[in-house]
């Protein structure tokens, strides 16, 4: 893979999608306001849960805010990259415009996963980081190199798991044509990621660890933040992320063999 070429193309992707989005100024403004209100709403909801009970699933409100911070970053990444690109796969397949992607001398997964960005998602990412910084201060977390490295690794793994799940569902469009509902179900499951995994019953904990690994997405990075995570959990998250990423890649290449293109 020619890295220089891919960087050059990604620079163009950034340029063209930013220029496209900036054509509609009011839309960006509405998205920005929505992101701020959504974060305020989520923190308010979380505070209601903790109002009568100091702990939920062994987590204090200040600690649970870390999960909210990581969720906000991930949601920001979802809104910046996954939502504009991966929902577009369904459209590409339904309308047959995937033809143009497949005939370009560039990796098709790279093209359809990164062509667009939604700049308003950046604010959510920034708000998430701001909340995390606040949590570091409130929870008196010591910043060290190992802490920052592990946090970064687990957050990157969470992004990979989330991306792979979404990409996997979008890929099934090649057979099922319409998969909007499955993506909506995935997004609803992600809302669950705002709460500590221990606050759910045993059966739900198993479900959210094995079938839809929400647990890996928010809870493990949060545990790393609080110094509560064990090494095996971090290694498990890295393994799960690698398997998910590789499987989604293989699945995409396999699915393309069944692509029949839309009729003209």
């Amino acid at each position: 893979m020619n890295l220089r070429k891919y960087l050059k193309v990604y620079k163009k992707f950034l340029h063209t999608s930013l220029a496209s989005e900036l054509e509609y100024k009011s839309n960006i403004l509405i998205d920005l306001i929505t992101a701020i209100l959504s974060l305020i709403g989520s923190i308010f909801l979380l505070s209601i849960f903790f109002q009568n009970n100091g702990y939920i699933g062994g987590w204090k409100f200040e600690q649970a805010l870390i999960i909210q911070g990581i969720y906000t970053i991930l949601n920001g990444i979802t809104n910046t990259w996954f939502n504009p690109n991966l929902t577009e796969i369904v459209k590409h397949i339904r309308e047959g415009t995937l033809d143009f992607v497949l005939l370009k001398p560039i990796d098709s997964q790279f093209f359809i996963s990164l062509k667009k960005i939604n700049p308003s998602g950046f604010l959510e990412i920034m708000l998430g980081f701001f909340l995390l910084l606040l949590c570091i201060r409130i929870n008196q977390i010591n910043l060290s190199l190992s802490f920052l490295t592990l946090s970064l690794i687990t957050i990157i793994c969470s992004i990979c798991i989330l991306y792979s799940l979404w990409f996997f569902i979008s890929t099934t469009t090649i057979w099922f044509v319409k998969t909007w509902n499955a993506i909506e179900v995935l997004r609803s499951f992600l809302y669950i990621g705002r709460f500590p995994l221990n606050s759910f019953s045993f059966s739900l904990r198993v479900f959210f660890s094995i079938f839809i690994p929400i647990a890996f997405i928010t809870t493990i990075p949060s545990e790393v933040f609080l110094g509560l995570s064990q090494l095996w959990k971090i290694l498990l998250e890295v393994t799960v992320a690698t398997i998910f990423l590789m499987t989604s890649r293989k699945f995409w290449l396999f699915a393309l063999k069944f692509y029949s293109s839309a009729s003209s």
Partner: protein
Amino acid sequence: MVQNIIDVRNLSKSFDISSKEPGLKGTIKHFFRRQTKSLKVIKDISFEIKEGEIVGFLGANGAGKTTILKMLCGLIYPSEGSIFVSGYLPFRRKENFLKTITLIMGQKQQLIWDLPPIESFYLNASIYDLDKFEAKKRIKKLSEMLEIDEELFIPVRKLSLGQRMKSELLAALIHEPHILFLDEPTLGLDINAQINLRKFLQKYNKETNATICLTSHYMKDITSLCKRVICVHEGEISYDGKLDLLLKKLSPVKEILIVCRSEEDAIKLENSGFTVKNKIKNEITIKIENNSITSSLKTILNNFDIEDLFINEPPIDEVIGKVLIKKDYEI
């Protein structure tokens, strides 16, 4: 000797198609127990195309033209048979193969809707690994050939269909492909835009010796661009050869309207052995075979007092239409 750039042998393609009975009962049955059957849309076809040729694929809707085109450019896997395009197996979509081809579809677009076409051109240029200087040079050259200038800087959504199609062509040709697959490129364009597009394709073919495979329902596209046509009927090739030969065979006679000086001359002509279609006063319409048209006209002009005459070519759409609806048309 000109080499074959496309080589297709015993190519077949089947799709799984599901069918549904009408009404609510049929819908429920279709939802729970979908019945699918394998439908062979391309049946054991073989052909070759030489470098620099412009070949028109003719066929009714659903005949299989677009499926053939999509297999040639590597979008669809063939079920049986072999395809070689420029020495590559298209469905492997190797980078070097993709750099030699392009696909233009009249009803689908690749330009970024909210931005001027120039942005899409530079994006494509980076995908094809062209530096800024080279991209600029090619955009200038192609925009001159396509006669577009200011349109390059206007958002695509504000361009007319004709301007958009020219921009689509430029976006698809920026990497200077040697093989062009065009699927109904003039669809929806007005007469002038159609003429301009054809002129451009002729010029591009002449200047670059590019091979062009074209499908179109506008016969004018085919007659003005293609010397050779491949007629597809229900997934099979019903004719593969020169277009003028096909037209001659399908339409072996010409109708000639002759205006005689007097009605007596018209009666004399009517009884002189020519096949008469009709006669109204001093005007008579006769049918003459293509191969004897010169000698017959000479005889008429020498022996009868003629005021005027008109040679009527049968409408090409009508002639070609015969091939499209009949499987075993004797050509």
